[in-house]
């Protein structure tokens, strides 16, 4: 259920995310010290072009990566094929994109 194009999308999104995930983990370890607060998070991210691009890229890549990954699992474990498999892939991708974009806007803009 993965042809060459989907495989490329899966691997390229993985390569884009690799440095972002490592950075995300580092920020988590740094930020979690002393507990989290809305003011602390927004103080770091709000109005920052860097964090907007960082999380924006992250959300796009993870939406593609998760949609293709779950597509494969839905086929292998749930035997989904054809129209419903493609629909599921797109729905997962678009839902994650929409919710992710909302989160990025919430913490970096306004």
């Amino acid at each position, binding site marked *: 259920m993965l042809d060459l194009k989907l495989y490329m999308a899966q691997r390229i999104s993985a390569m884009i995310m*690799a440095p972002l995930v490592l950075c995300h983990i580092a920020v988590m370890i740094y930020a979690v010290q002393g507990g*989290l607060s809305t003011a602390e998070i927004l103080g770091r991210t709000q109005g920052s072009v860097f964090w907007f691009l960082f999380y924006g890229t992250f959300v796009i890549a993870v939406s593609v990566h998760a949609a293709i990954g779950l597509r494969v699992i839905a086929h292998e474990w749930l035997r989904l094929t054809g129209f419903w498999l493609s629909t599921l892939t797109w729905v997962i991708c678009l839902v994650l994109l929409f919710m992710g974009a909302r989160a990025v806007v919430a913490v970096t803009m306004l």
Partner: protein
Amino acid sequence: MMRPSKSHPLWFAFVVHRLSGITLALFLPAHFWIMSLALTNADQLDRFLTFADNPLVKIVEFCLVFLLSIHIFGGLRLLAMEFLPWSNAQKSLAAAAVGLSLFISGTFFLQAI
């Protein structure tokens, strides 16, 4: 029957990669929703972050950081296997990914409590 009765290290690495991937994908919508509270309801986000100081939540967070780490280091092993010259050390590399992930998620946990 999903598997031969005797599993082996790389089969185990595959299962870990798949299950961590599913869990992270299911966690993402919740994560996104909570972060978007900053936009719609900042008080609720603050209440959630206070709730997150609960030790049980810290353990859940530790698990999530471990799953994220094992998914990325396991994934980097697969990328290296596919795009770099072949290495016969796949089992050792998979074990190293587990060790590194425990170290990183352990560091997170110690900083969080």
